[in-house]
């Protein structure tokens, strides 16, 4: 069984060309912008009032794009090669876990190796990396990696479940419900507090509660995606 799951994972990782390309382009563009500003600063230009966005943030695109491409594009092709739904289901989970971990690792390295030294150089007003915004950097490199990986994993599994549901009435209902929750919950104080609590748990709570919340929700979404996959025609 594991051999088939691993084969599905490898096959999907190999066939995410669009996701790799888009991520690489966006990261390169952001990197180009930072390098340009840095050159201007080294040439005597004043960039000290500008906030710079870390290119590392944009690696987050990769697991999110993969979460769309794997069920929408690769699913039928994997089944056509003789894979069964169960292998695909576990394989897709492994793809999301590996990509979330890889991207979290890359962004952690980017944060400590580039963003922090750049911010401390005083050439910019600051370098914005989401690991700092969400407070993960307050707990050290392991938390930066772990909390980021857990959040990305949750986001990817959720996007994957939503992608699997598209084309069915319950998929459209979920889309409408998500928009409704955001737009209805935000203006009403009580509901806004509930929404705030939810985002606090998956983003801002300390390392262990945040990790636990993300992994628990990811597990729920993944089990839901099994139900969705069972109803997805090939």
């Amino acid at each position, binding site marked *: 069984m594991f051999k088939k799951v691993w084969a599905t994972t490898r096959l999907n990782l190999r066939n995410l060309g669009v996701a790799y390309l888009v991520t690489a382009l966006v990261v390169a563009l952001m990197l180009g912008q930072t390098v340009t500003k840095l050159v201007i600063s080294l040439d005597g230009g004043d960039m000290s009032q500008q906030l710079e966005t870390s290119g590392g943030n944009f690696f987050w695109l990769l697991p999110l794009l993969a979460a769309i491409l794997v069920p929408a594009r690769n699913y039928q092709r994997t089944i056509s090669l003789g894979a069964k739904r169960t292998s695909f289901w576990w394989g897709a989970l492994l793809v999301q876990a590996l990509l979330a971990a890889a991207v979290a690792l890359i962004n952690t390295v980017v944060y400590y190796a580039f963003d922090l030294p750049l911010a401390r150089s005083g050439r910019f007003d600051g370098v914005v990396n989401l690991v700092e915004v969400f407070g993960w950097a307050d707990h050290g490199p392991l938390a930066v990696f772990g909390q980021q990986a857990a959040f990305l994993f949750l986001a990817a599994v959720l996007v994957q479940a939503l992608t699997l549901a598209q084309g069915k009435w319950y998929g459209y209902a979920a889309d409408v419900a998500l928009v409704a929750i955001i737009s209805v919950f935000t203006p009403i104080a009580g509901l806004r507090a509930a929404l705030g609590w939810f985002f606090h748990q998956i983003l801002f709570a300390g390392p262990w509660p945040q990790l636990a919340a993300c992994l628990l929700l990811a597990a729920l979404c993944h089990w839901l995606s099994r139900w969705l996959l*069972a109803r997805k025609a090939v």
Partner: protein
Amino acid sequence: MIEFDHVTKRYGGVNAIDRVCLRLPDHGIHCLLGRNGAGKTTWMKLLAGHIGATSGAITVDGRPVSPGRMPESVNYIESGVTQFNLRVSELMAAAADLQQGFDQGFAQEMADRLELDRRKRFKQLSFGMRTMLTTIIALANSSRAILLDEPTLGFDAIMRQQFNDLLLQSHQAHPRLIVVSTHLIDEIAKVTERLIVIDRGRVLLQAGIDQVDELAYSLSGPTAAVQPLLAGLNVIGRTSAGALTTAQIYDHRITPPPGVVLERLSLQDFFINLVGGGTHV
């Protein structure tokens, strides 16, 4: 043993498969015939667990089949299906990793014999070659039931012959159930043992080729001589031109009187009369 028990698949207000009851044995090459939209693909997808039935039960070796329970022993391949744009050799290797007991030796031997360039990527292959590759991957599978949906689509005459050889060799190497859906009836008749005819979602016929050969015939002659012979016979088609009548029959053979000619019906004529039958003047 594969069993359909009053299976219905409904799309909107239409029954694509309508209360089908069917039993299939463990071995043999079966040909699934039907007009476009008759329900062949739906029937195959239901059996492979790619889609779920609206009502009724499908079982493989007593185990229920549904999209949540795709049977390991059934492999369905749709013609014209898009594969990952990998090299032929890489696709075969991927299939070997994904399937238990994939016969890579058989796949490679067939690819060489059919002059399938293993270095080419999937999108570099012609439509016929893509279908042939997909078919090879399906037949190298060790599943106990292989369902091939229109596998000869886009094949030239030589490729169709090669496909028939491939089918026979695969069946000899791994005796099992192979169901082939096709419109090229007389060509598949050379290798198939049994026929399943579907029309408007219902199974019209499930019979051996020998049985069809024996029971399907036509009677031609003066209408006055042919007409009395048809009483009590299962007439599936009739053509009249002036004072002459030709009747297509699927029933026991009779000995025609002088002036009336009895001829064996080709499989294609039999099929046309069975599903599109009626009286033609």
